[in-house]
Structure formats: C-alpha cells, structure tokens
C-alpha cells in the first residue's frame, strides 16, 4: 500500500515535469525538465522494484542516475560552448543567448 502511494506520487511528479518540458518557454526549462525527469525515473524504478517484490532493480536505478548526469553535462556543454569537445577553460564566450529559444 505504501509503495502504491509512493508510485502515485512519482507518477504525478512525472506528469508535472512533462508539462514543464512541453510548455517550458526557454531552453533551460527543458534541460531542467529532462534532468528532473531522469531523477524521477530513478525514483520510479526504485519504487517499481519494491512494488514488484524485486528490490534488485535498485542497480538499474543507480545506472540511470549516472547516465542522467552525463547527459545533462553534455547538453549544458553544447549550450555553453556550442561544441561537445571544448575544454572548460577555452575562454569562448557563451553563445546560448541568441539561440536560447
């Protein structure tokens, strides 16, 4: 019962994040929505593991957390430098402003 309630909460959070990703006026709203959705997915898989009586699924939740982190870093790097291979201190000015929509 408790896990069912937790799952309902996670699904509600998913719906809200989805609304932000679909409506989000700026790119950063959507990037944040993607990152948050990854976190909520981690939670959903953890809760699902307990809901289905197989808590071993927690490993997958850990992997998702790692992937989510790397993906967000790649997207933000693209926004900041316009180049995925740029080193952090290349001194190029951020060009996210003009293409921010």
């Amino acid at each position, binding site marked *: 019962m408790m896990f069912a309630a937790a799952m309902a909460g996670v699904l509600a959070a998913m719906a809200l994040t989805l609304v932000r990703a*679909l409506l989000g006026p700026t790119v950063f709203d959507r990037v944040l929505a993607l990152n948050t959705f990854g976190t909520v997915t981690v939670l959903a898989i953890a809760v699902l593991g307990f809901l289905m009586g197989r808590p071993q699924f927690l490993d997958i939740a850990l992997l998702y957390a790692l992937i989510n982190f790397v993906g967000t870093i790649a997207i933000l790097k693209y926004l900041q430098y316009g180049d995925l291979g740029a080193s952090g201190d290349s001194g190029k000015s951020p060009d996210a402003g003009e293409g921010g929509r």
Partner: protein
Amino acid sequence: MITATNLALLAFLAVLAWAIARIRNLFVVTMLAGIYSLLTATVFVLLDAVDVAFTEAAVGAGITTVLFLSALLLTDREAKPRKNRLASLGPMVLVVLLGAALVYTTLDPRMPHYGDAKAPAHGRLAPEFLADTVKQVGADKPTATHIPNVVTTTLASYRGFDTLGEVVVIFTAGVGVLILLGGNATRRRRRNPAPREESSGAGSSGKGAGA
C-alpha cells in the same frame, strides 16, 4: 497498481510522441526524445526486460542525445515548416494500420498471451537451459560456473561464440566512430591554429604528421 502505472506511462509516451511530431524546434525535440527514452526504459523494467531497459537508457537517453546534439551543431536548430499537411496523411494511415495489425496479433486467440507459460518459445529449449544452468551452478561440481544467472550463463557460455562476434562488431563500430570523430578534430585544429594550452601539443604533432 502495476496496470495503472503501465497505463500512465503509456499515456505519457503518447503525449510525448505527439509533441515530438508537432514541435519544429530540433533542440526541444532532442530533449523530448531523451525523456521518451527514459519513459520507454521504465516501461521495459515494468515488462521485466531489465537488460533491454539498460540498453535503452544507455543508448537512447545517453548516447543518442549526445549524437543528436552533435548533429545539431552541423545543421539548423529549426526544422523547415511543413509545406502541406495532406502529404503526411499517407504515412499516418500506414502507421495506424500497422499499429492496428500489431494490436490485433495480441488479441488473436491463436497467439500466446503475454507471460503465457505455454507459449511455443518457452516450450523447447528454455527448460533444458534452466535445468542445465542449475546443474552447473552447484558449488560441489568441478565444472561449476558459480553464475546464478541464467541470462549470463546463456550469453557467456552457451552462445559464447555468438557473443564474441557481437562484441567484435561493436568494437569495430566504436573504432570507426572514433576514427571519424578524431579525423574531424585534427582538421579543425589545423585550420584554426590558435595556441591553446591544452591542445597545443596535439596540434603541433598533427602538423608534424602532415608535413
């Protein structure tokens, strides 16, 4: 609760697919495709296909998003506006028909249902593999593999050569991608020889190779 979760996730997927088809900003579409991938992976976990969910998360949400972003660097951020709406009607009808056919196959009484233990796929080889794996895992046997996972035993032992071939294919693809990307970076550095602390060594070595 599982059914309700399934329905909610599938509804989210439908909404996302509709939005991806409608939105013309490619950056936004890339974000939404990443979310779509995560949702699909959750559905796979619900269907007990954990290994597929692993792959979907790593490839769909991780690599594909990065690849889409690299492609966006070379193209425009906005897709061209649709010329006429009737042109997309044909593919729409085709996709709806195909989807209806797939749904029909799940409803046909002659087809095995989801999770049916008597399905033909579960009748012949699976019981033998399950029994053999249990036999081999016994700790007192000299040939014990100590692998309590049937999937791992099948992948690494029963069809080990097949897996080796797959690994060779993936390795070749990875090397090819690295060569393509690395060649591009060298060309860019040669065209733009501004001295940078990090890449000056690599740039000079590239120049030496070219001379």
